[in-house]
């Protein structure tokens, strides 16, 4: 593979990403993040309470309201929080200078969190940063007053931030058993948030094979007053794809995937070691389709991270309007299970023959996807679910026939029947609120990862068909005897003796294939596939296989089982 220097604008340096923990809850989250040691971001703690601030692990700390509060907490009064941040505005402003992305973590409902978060968000925006807010909503038992404070603050944040990810503490309660202490409950909630921040950072910062970036993240979270649906799972082993998905769906924010039923846009990000295979991705996406409505816009991303080793991690991010979540939760679960795609026995037909096409479609920017939507959406209402499946194939084919996808994408088609999905209000608020342009190099990012993807995939393929027929013909031309050049003394001895003696000499000739050579035939999605060197391949083909000569190689865990282990092991 030809490596190329990534455009510097595409990657965001770690020094330009800052995570701010605001208030008591925010500091807790920050601490969890610090413990998990997120690479690629700096941490900043803001608090009025000097004791809390003193013990915080963050590298940078700013005390809010030094004269006003004198190092005490706000006591749950947002007004005090507001005053305190205004007092420290200059310090915060200088700390946020030149930041590209700012994550603000705050627990809403209290004094510092609710009062100061909107101001911090504003300051960050004024410094030209892209602002993502992670906010937790208070527990029901914390009372109406705090809930109202949180709501007020959340309303302001909706306007001020580029992306708002809200976690409801009530939902967090499901993370732990009823018996466990409150300490653990909050710990679990913090961990959850830390996980999602990490996932978002990974998504935004590290360029993937099939890239998803801030624009996709924005699309996934694009609803006003939404609650974030977030699930992340990691697994290793044989059926890691299924396990990882199961873990991701077991996140309480997803309710076993049933909440995804209502999602309009779902961001799916996969990350795995070099052993990540295309088949696994296909499998995973297929199982995911059971949980996501057919009309949903799936933003798919994949990244290869050698540090992941044998692990496969999946991250699901989506958002639901708050009201559906509150009132419909119960109903949705039961309904979802009654007429779902879950139990639909999949016929052979709808499976997409070429996975590449599938990916291409999925990663296509929003507008193109939406212009595809009306057809299935309209038909869906009139047709039964079976035919809907076949119908949804059509746009894909049409889509493939129209050659320049890249061009068609950028034309925003004004459509009257922009079904239910997007309220006009959000549509016109978004462009001004989201300076996507500020974030460098998002447009055009799509094309190159494709090229990369295709390259790594298609190159090994032509090699296989040529490799094997060739090898058989070579082998057949040779004498069947595994000892092509016997030592001369062997001539004067009975055959079997020479066989015994020549053993060692023979062993040297048979070079058992190294695992990369053999793994080449299996379709593997590798970032940098190691192409078999010609020498290796030659010796692999030359090894006589006796009875199993000319058969397809019987490769298992990187060992050709048709060769005697006696010879293979000795070589190793």
């Amino acid at each position, binding site marked *: 593979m030809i490596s190329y220097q990534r455009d510097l604008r595409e990657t965001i340096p770690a020094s330009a990403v800052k995570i701010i923990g605001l208030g008591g809850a925010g500091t807790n989250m920050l601490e969890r993040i610090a413990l998990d040691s997120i690479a690629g971001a700096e941490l900043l703690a803001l608090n009025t309470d000097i004791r809390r601030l003193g013990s915080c692990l963050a590298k940078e700390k700013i005390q809010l309201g030094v004269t006003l509060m004198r190092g005490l907490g706000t006591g749950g009064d947002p007004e005090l929080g507001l005053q305190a941040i205004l007092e420290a505005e200059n310090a915060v402003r200088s700390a946020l200078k030149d930041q590209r992305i700012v994550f603000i973590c705050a627990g809403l409902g209290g004094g510092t969190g609710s009062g100061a978060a909107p101001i911090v968000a504003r300051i960050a925006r004024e410094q030209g940063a892209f602002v993502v807010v992670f906010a937790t909503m208070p527990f029901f038992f914390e009372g109406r007053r705090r809930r109202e404070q949180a709501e007020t603050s959340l309303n302001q944040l909706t306007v001020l931030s580029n992306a708002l990810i809200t976690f409801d503490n009530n939902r967090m309660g499901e993370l732990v058993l009823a018996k466990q202490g409150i300490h653990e409950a909050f710990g679990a909630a913090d961990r959850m948030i830390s996980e999602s921040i990490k996932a978002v950072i990974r998504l935004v910062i590290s360029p993937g094979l099939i890239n998803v970036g801030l624009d996709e993240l924005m699309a996934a979270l694009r609803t006003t007053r939404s609650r974030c649906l977030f699930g992340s799972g990691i697994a290793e082993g044989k059926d890691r794809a299924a396990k990882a998905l199961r873990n991701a769906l077991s996140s309480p924010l997803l309710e076993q995937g049933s909440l995804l039923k209502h999602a309009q846009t779902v961001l799916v990000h996969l990350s795995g070691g070099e052993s990540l295979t295309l088949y696994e991705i296909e499998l995973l996406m297929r199982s995911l389709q059971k949980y996501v409505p057919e009309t949903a816009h799936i933003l798919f991303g994949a990244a290869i991270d050698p540090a992941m080793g044998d692990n496969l991690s999946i991250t699901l991010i989506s958002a639901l309007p708050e009201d559906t979540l509150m009132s419909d939760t119960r109903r949705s679960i039961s309904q979802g299970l009654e007429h779902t795609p879950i139990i639909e026995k999949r016929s052979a037909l709808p499976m997409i023959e070429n996975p590449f096409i599938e990916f291409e479609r999925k990663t296509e920017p929003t507008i193109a996807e939406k212009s595809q939507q009306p057809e299935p959406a309209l038909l869906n209402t009139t047709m039964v679910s079976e035919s809907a499946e076949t119908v949804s194939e059509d746009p894909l084919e049409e889509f493939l026939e129209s050659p320049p996808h890249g061009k068609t994408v950028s034309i925003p088609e004004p459509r009257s029947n922009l079904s239910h999905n997007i309220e006009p209000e959000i549509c016109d608020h978004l462009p001004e609120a989201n300076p996507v342009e500020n974030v460098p190099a998002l447009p055009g990012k799509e094309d190159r990862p494709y090229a990369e993807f295709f390259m790594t995939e298609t190159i090994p393929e032509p090699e296989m068909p040529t490799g094997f027929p060739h090898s058989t013909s070579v082998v057949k031309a040779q004498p069947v005897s595994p000892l092509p050049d016997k030592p001369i003394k062997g001539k004067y001895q009975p055959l079997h003796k020479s066989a015994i003696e020549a053993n060692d000499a023979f062993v040297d000739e048979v070079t058992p294939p190294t695992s990369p050579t053999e793994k080449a035939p299996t379709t593997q999605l590798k970032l940098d596939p190691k192409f078999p060197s010609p020498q290796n391949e030659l010796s692999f083909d030359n090894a006589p296989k006796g*009875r199993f000569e000319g058969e397809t190689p019987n490769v298992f865990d990187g060992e050709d089982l048709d060769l005697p282990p006696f010879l293979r092991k000795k070589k190793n």
Partner: protein
Amino acid sequence: MARRTKIHVGLEIGSSKTCIVVGEVKPDSAVKILGIGVTKSAGVRKGEIWDFPQARACLKDALTKAEDSSDVEIGSVYLSVTGSHMLGVNNRGNIRLQDNQPNILPEHLEEACNIARDVHYPHDHVCLHSIIRKYLVDDQEQAASPIGLFAKTVAADFHIVHGIGNRIQNSIKLVRECPLEVDDIVFAPIATAQMALDREQRLRGALLIDIGGGTTDYALYLEGAIAASGSIPVGGDHVTNDIHLVTGLPFSKAEKLKILEGNASADPSLSVGIAKLTDESGYADVEVKRAILNEVIRQRLEETLKLVRDRLPKGAVASLGAGVFLTGGTSLMNGFSELAFDVFGRDIYRPEPSENTNSDHPSFKDPRYATAIGLIRYAQILETENTKPPGCIGRLFGLFWPFGS
């Protein structure tokens, strides 16, 4: 219920032999073997058909022999299939009940079963078996049907065996051309397990390894239900081939050496000296150092057993209460149980090679016919299920407790 005597025929097309067993199931569900037809296979490699005309000729020959010995005209058979493409996977279907309707209805269970059965396999594969393992009610195991119980979630655990459709179709085509009808196709280790493992052994946990000529098939039973199954394309032929490759001896001699002189146990005292084969004229025909011969055999079989072990779910070997059951021709190899013990560290059961080799007195115990006889057992179980008023759950449950009725 009065049942009639029924005749079932099991057919196994193996890499080394094609075997047809005709069995009579008496009204008291005792099985009597009426006759066996065995021919050396040709055209079958690693459990899959390699040369169609040859395999067909072998099948015809076996069929004639079986019909002769049993005095039964065979019209339809139960066919066992194997091959490295066959794979058994476990899957769980989970559903969450509505809050206002917390007891489990049959349709809930059916839905869970449907979800569990809907495993994703490559699109050229077909599902061969889907066997219920257990039900879980609120993550607690439930042996019997949980219909009517109160629960928040209910799950069904299934074991699904799938394989490449076309290859299975080819086996069926071969049989149909004979012409014979195929009553049902069964994954070979599952059929063998019907014969080799009894219910108690399955409850305690047992691993069946059937090492044949071309493939090594395995089936793992834990807590009475199948937990893993699969096939590895390595068998006795590979041992012979290894000896041929390492020593340069022709296949026939290698095979003879393997059977007469080979030993798979790592006992150093057995690896001293030279193994000799004499031909008809009494001359020493072949001489090979025992150390090399045994090492070649041992390494091959050890690797094969380790492949099986590594494909089992984690912790499965430790929970084998009953032990490891070996069958298949290669399991008759000298010293094989010692080797198996080294690999698994559990009790090893190996069938005794039966004394009477003629098919007039066929024995249940003979490991070479285990699969074909297992097929008759399987047929018997299917039969009893079908005569019962079926009902989906009852049927599934019947599969779960094969000897329950």
